[in-house]
């Protein structure tokens, strides 16, 4: 009996001790980000079990039934997950840090993908990156952060020019924007605060699903969604100023009078009339503009629904007077789960007002402010309109830039609605059907009013003018997709996607203008000397899409996709296009031989595929007539009709074959991360408006859209990141560098070269040329070699007798030695594309302080500085650069100042009108894009009211290192077209700005 009892006790003890050992406990703690901010909605999961919890509003959690040996994974979207063995602890506070590598879940075409499974070239930018720099447009968030992506900003309210991996086309090279699945032309209606993540899809394996629209790459934007947990209210604001500090150094009144005298105009008395004053016209057009932004958002979620609402007001005064941008934007994102059905909508509405930079007489404000004589006062109360301008006596017809900028107004009012409604149904385990209708709708009203004025005998208008352009457009996309996701035998992961998409786009414009000579009081249109016109466009697309992703245990990856696409922009013969992609990946780090290695990620991937481009105007394949030629017969209008722009019934898709190899790695527990990419893309049948021989007399500038060129674009991209933490100090550095080299590999039969590019200035030749073996639209012109010092030097080149070129003129190199300078002497004088672009992003946090510094730059590109024409052209009397003081002075046929850097004033036509080297400059620069310091208040004193308050101060573009003489080397292109690459026509310069901001979470 005793023995029995003894055993029983032992058994019990054992059991109880066993029980004691296995005794589950409850652990609790707070999950925060590195700045101490609590993370609500973070998930806590006991590895290998269903036991999980999520944090509450204050980032607190509590998890029952945890054993000391359990491993708990703490994760939060966008941050690196941590796994901690419980041990004896019952309170576990965790700080989750952001991966420098990027988000774990990556947004891709028609879905998301685990980063480990990604086989294509994707750069991502998170909401945190976006929040680090106060920006007025969402595109700017990409600048310097995504390797191979260039972003160039323009005037306030204009969409920045974005290009991915250099130029592959010659028309519009803007990427496709996809906002929550809605195809959009730009991100202008979107508040940067509403963006959760941006994925830049760079190779065909990621873009081919967008087929004919994906040629220039795709930028997929996901807006912030509501999060499960109690409601969270955030408010953020910033206020600051922006200004342009650089000026062109132009002649003052005294210098100008002497210069004018040398050019044959004695203006001493005229200047005295105005009191010999000295007006700095550039100072008059640049200003310190005020920027302000207020953003309020509310997010919450229940077990079955999420929602997020936000509103923003942003106002930005430009760095040029009377320019600016104002936007109200609203967004509501909702989801609702109803059993197996999930429905939701994401809708953003914005209203904007833009005051663009104004121009007059075909010249920009900057051009006028350079050329305007300095002895004029700005205002003259005796003149109609109140401004002073030149008369014939002044011999200089530049317009008063202050009048051009300030008299009357130009306002562009825009409304944009971008949104979708979707339903998602899980039909069967792993099989989901999704239907989505998306809308991109805009209206814009561009209204200009200029009252009557008279500045002098040159510039006057006896009537007021009112012009208005109304535009309206809508694109409706209807997507229906099926996805099936399954795992076979625990290792074969398969995901299949099928989509049918249909795009219906419509747009219309209505333009009208009128004049009124009775009064300046009415700024509206009236039936008086009016003009009127409207146009209407329709575009339709149909696409069938399929994708299969397969991986073996996340170790070996395969992705295959295809799209069959039709576009109404092409004739029946070439309407359909097929696009495909194949990608392979190998997660080497998951191999057994890599166990315990320093690598947490080591992945090799390769992809190839095709995309297309239908970015041409509608209806180009059909021949049309133009009914807009007019001639007065007997005082009445006789309307004329003749052949329109040369049509091309054989137009077909531009197509591009992408090849990409990438290597991703992270070492030492994600401390060091990085990736290398190499791409080699071939574009074929590139569409371009080819200039026809002028003598065939074709309409519309004499061009025909043709599939004219083949182009090869190749390059490397490297990004490297490092992050570390020592006590309260955390820091990270991310550097990226991209190269992109393009070369024309073929031109259509019969075409040897094409001259293009925008007309830089009236009277100045085009510079940009297309030729096999050269970069797209390289600079083509005359080489120069100093200045002819005397007649003997001139005659040595041309022989005696000619009178066009004289001492003091530029020595243009007669390359073919035939003693005549003509187009045969032109050659490659510059490359508008950089050897590489780079960005360096530094982040640091110490206790409550946070710091960001961001540097970006380009190296090795040439800029064609058209402003040189105004500043140093000296073809007639205008105010000019002080450099003209060092022009060649010719006395009796000999240059008396041999060190002169500029040719003689008003010399041979070819000095200034020809495409030659004097306009080409090195465009390399390094720029401190942003530097910011923030402080977050914490402590119980605030806790009662706020969960977080952060103050910051930041500066943009404060330091720029460059040899470029223009106001701003950040040029990109003069317009959206490739043939304007590297041409500076007086682009709106990037201002310096200083901003104070406040972020509050309640």
């Amino acid at each position, binding site marked *: 009996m005793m023995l029995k009892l003894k055993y029983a006790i032992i058994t019990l003890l054992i059991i109880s001790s066993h029980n004691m050992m296995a005794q589950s406990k409850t652990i609790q703690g707070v999950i925060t980000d590195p700045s101490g901010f609590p993370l609500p909605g973070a998930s806590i999961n006991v590895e290998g079990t269903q036991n999980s919890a999520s944090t509450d509003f204050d980032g607190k959690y509590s998890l029952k039934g945890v054993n000391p040996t359990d491993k708990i994974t703490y994760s939060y979207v966008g941050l690196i997950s941590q796994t901690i063995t419980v041990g004896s602890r019952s309170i576990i506070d965790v700080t989750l840090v952001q991966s420098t590598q990027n988000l774990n879940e990556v947004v891709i075409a028609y879905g998301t993908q685990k980063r480990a499974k990604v086989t294509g070239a994707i750069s991502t930018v998170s909401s945190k990156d976006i929040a680090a720099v106060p920006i007025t447009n969402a595109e700017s968030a990409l600048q310097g952060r995504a390797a191979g992506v260039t972003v160039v900003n323009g005037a306030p309210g204009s969409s920045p020019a974005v290009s991915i991996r250099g130029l592959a086309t010659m028309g519009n090279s803007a990427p496709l924007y996809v906002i929550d699945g809605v195809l959009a032309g730009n991100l202008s209606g979107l508040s940067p605060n509403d963006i959760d993540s941006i994925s830049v899809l760079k190779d065909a394996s990621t873009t081919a699903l967008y087929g004919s629209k994906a040629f220039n790459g795709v930028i997929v934007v996901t807006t912030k969604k509501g999060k499960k947990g109690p409601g969270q209210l955030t408010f953020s604001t910033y206020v600051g100023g922006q200004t342009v500090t650089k000026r062109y150094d132009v002649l003052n009144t005294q210098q100008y009078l002497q210069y004018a005298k040398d050019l044959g105009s004695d203006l001493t008395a005229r200047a005295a009339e105005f009191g010999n004053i000295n007006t700095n016209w550039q100072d008059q057009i640049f200003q310190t503009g005020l920027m302000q932004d207020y953003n309020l958002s509310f997010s919450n979620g229940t077990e079955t629904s999420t929602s997020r609402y936000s509103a923003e007001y942003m106002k930005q005064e430009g760095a040029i007077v009377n320019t600016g941008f104002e936007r109200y934007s609203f967004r509501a994102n909702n989801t609702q789960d109803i059993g197996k059905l999930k429905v939701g909508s994401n809708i953003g509405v914005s209203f904007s007002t833009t005051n663009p930079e104004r121009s007059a007489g075909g010249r920009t404000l900057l051009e006028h402010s350079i050329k305007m004589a300095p002895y004029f006062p700005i205002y003259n109360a005796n003149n109609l309109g109140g401004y002073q301008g030149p008369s014939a006596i002044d011999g200089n017809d530049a317009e008063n830039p202050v009048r051009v900028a300030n008299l009357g107004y130009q306002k562009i009012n825009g409304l944009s609605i971008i949104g979708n409604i979707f339903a998602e149904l899980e039909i069967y385990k792993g099989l989901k059907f999704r239907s989505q209708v998306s809308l991109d709708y805009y209206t814009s009203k561009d209204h200009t009013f200029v009252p009557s004025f008279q500045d002098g005998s040159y510039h006057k208008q006896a009537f007021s003018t009112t012009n208005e352009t109304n535009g309206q457009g809508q694109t409706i996309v209807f997507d229906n997709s099926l996805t099936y996701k399954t795992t076979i035998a625990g290792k074969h992961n398969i995901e299949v996607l099928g989509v049918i998409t249909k795009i219906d786009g419509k747009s219309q414009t209505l333009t009208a203008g009128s004049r009124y000579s009775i009064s300046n009081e009415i700024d509206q249109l009236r039936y008086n000397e009016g003009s009127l016109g409207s146009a209407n466009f329709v575009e339709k697309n149909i696409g069938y899409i399929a994708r299969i992703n397969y991986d073996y245990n996340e170790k070996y990856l395969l992705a295959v996709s295809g799209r069959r696409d039709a576009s109404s922009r092409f004739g029946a013969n070439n309407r359909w296009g097929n696009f495909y992609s194949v990608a392979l990946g190998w997660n080497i780090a998951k191999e057994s031989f890599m166990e315990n290695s320093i690598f947490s990620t080591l992945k090799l991937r390769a992809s190839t595929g095709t995309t297309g481009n239908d970015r041409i105007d509608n209806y180009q394949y059909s021949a049309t007539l133009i009914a807009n030629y007019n001639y007065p017969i007997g005082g009445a209008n006789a309307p004329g009709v003749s052949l329109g722009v040369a049509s091309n019934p054989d137009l077909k898709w531009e197509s591009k074959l992408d090849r990409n190899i990438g290597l991703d790695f992270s070492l030492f527990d994600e401390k060091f991360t990085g990736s290398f990419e190499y791409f080699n893309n071939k574009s074929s049948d590139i569409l371009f408006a080819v200039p026809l021989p002028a003598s065939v007399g074709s309409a519309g500038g004499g061009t025909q859209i043709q599939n004219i060129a083949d182009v090869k674009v190749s390059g490397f991209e490297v990004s490297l990141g490092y992050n570390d933490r020592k006590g309260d100090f955390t820091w990270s550095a991310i550097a990226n560098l991209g190269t992109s080299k393009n070369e024309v590999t073929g031109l259509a039969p019969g075409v040897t070269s094409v001259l293009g590019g925008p007309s830089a200035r009236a009277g100045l030749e085009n510079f940009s040329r297309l030729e096999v073996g050269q970069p797209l639209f390289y600079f083509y012109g005359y080489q120069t070699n100093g200045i002819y010092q005397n007649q003997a030097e001139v005659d040595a080149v041309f022989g005696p007798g000619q009178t066009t070129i004289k001492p003091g003129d530029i020595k243009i190199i007669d390359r073919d030695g035939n003693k005549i300078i*003509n187009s045969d002497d032109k050659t490659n004088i510059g490359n508008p594309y950089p050897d590489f672009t780079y960005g360096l992003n530094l982040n640091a946090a110490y206790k409550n302080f946070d710091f960001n510094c961001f540097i970006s730059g380009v190296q090795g590109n040439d800029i064609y500085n058209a402003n040189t024409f105004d500043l140093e052209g000296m073809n007639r009397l205008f105010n000019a650069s002080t450099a003209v003081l060092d022009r060649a002075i010719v006395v009796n046929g000999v240059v008396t100042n041999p060190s002169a850097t500029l040719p003689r004033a008003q010399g041979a036509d070819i000095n200034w009108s020809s495409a030659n080297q004097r306009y080409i400059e090195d465009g390399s620069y390094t720029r401190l894009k942003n530097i910011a310091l923030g402080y977050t208040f914490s402590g119980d004193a605030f806790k009662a009211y706020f969960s977080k308050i952060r103050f910051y101060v930041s500066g943009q573009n404060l330091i720029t290192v460059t040899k470029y003489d223009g106001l701003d080397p950040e040029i990109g292109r003069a317009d959206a077209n490739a043939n304007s690459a590297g041409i500076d026509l007086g682009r709106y310069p990037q201002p310096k700005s200083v901003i104070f901001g406040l972020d509050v979470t309640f």
Partner: protein
Amino acid sequence: MKKIKYILIVLSGVLTITSCDTGELELTNPNTLSPETFFKSESQVQSSVNASYAGLQTRGLYGRNFSFAMDLMAHDALGNPQLEGNKKPFQDFSFNGGNDIIQYYWEACYIGISRANFVLDNEAKINALPNSVLSQEKKNKYLGEAHFLRAYYYFLLVKRFGDLPIYKTGTIIGNARSPKTDVYALIEEDLVFASQNLLPRATEAAGRANKEAAYAYLGKVLLYEKKYDEALVAFNSVTGFSLEDKGSFYNNFMAETEHGKESIFEIEFDEKNGTGDQWGAVGDSQGTGFEESTLRGQEYGNLSWYNVYPSDDLLDSYEAGDERFGDTFYVPGSSYLKGTKVMLASNFTTSAGIRRAGWKKYQNYYIREDEATRSSINFKVMRYADVLLMKAECENQRAGGSQTAAIAFIKEVRDRAGLTTAIAPTKEAVFTAIIHERKVEFAGEQSRFDDIIRWGIANTELQGTGFTAGKSELWPIPNRETSSNPNIKPSDNNPGY
């Protein structure tokens, strides 16, 4: 089971909606007319002809640049300091193939030609119209206008560029240059057709080319080819015209007196139909939109931009008592604005000093104080005075011609100017008189440069101006052509360019 059924119904419905008919992708452009359905009515035929006229108004031609380029080369006019850089080279002959004025001139002419060719390419369609829709006479006259305009543009071109690519039909393939004799042959052919098919002045609307204009230009072209006898025959067919009366010379240069008894062909402008986009690129050579005024008044006017002024050489060429002087120039003391105002010396001040005169021909100062609204005054490009002086030239030059007959023609012109000095009846004296008379009669009317080139006296007349014999007679083919036409290379350009 029921649930799945519903799902399938929904799914199949959705799929049907999306997998749509690809016929929807077949779109027609709602914004323009289609060539396939055109030439169905008189107004359509007429509009195709109107489009070719519209090319004359472009800034590349009479809208702006033509006056500058020709008057500066002739040294009728010289530039004030504010004259733009692309115009200055015409004064000193330093232009090259990159000059945009030369480019727009070339483009505007060839665009006018291609629009005329669009009409002629559809000759069969036009002739197929029932006579009830369009009478044969009208069909012929519209085709005649197209031939006239094509000849007009080719004549503008051949004088400036010599050998030309010839297009008799619409194409987008550039041709090589043909000898200028071939160009002249085509011009003659076109003008002969026009003279046979155009309506006479009496029945044609003012502003359209008429039979007499065709004969006048046929004569002029033949004169340029030195076919004096044939030219005279053509000129003799220009009937029903006379000079404006003595004392009314200025009727030739005002808006109210357009299409007067002296006027044979005019380039039409009418600002009340619209002044369009003053600086838009389409206006340089395309002639799109309502740009129905010329910048001439604003640019030449001494109360306006005053970009050019009459040269001393020209002012000094007038004989004492030549009444044309006061109708051609404003000088201090001239009255304007319907006689209510007087020009002061200060009205001729430029930054390079005070000029002796400003232009009065084609200025609006007779009714307006400023030119800011631009000008409606038509250019009288073929006046009866021109026909008279050309007839005189034919008589003087042709074998067996009569100097007396020639002097009679010149006398008609000189009488109107109030000049009585007799001309000696020798070939040399008559030729000298014609040189002088054309210079002063057509000052500022873009005539003199063509004259001194065809007479072969430019090298002496323009000595010291930068004119280079053997080069400056012609303009260079613009780079825009040599870079886009594989059949005309830079090395095919005119001598010296």
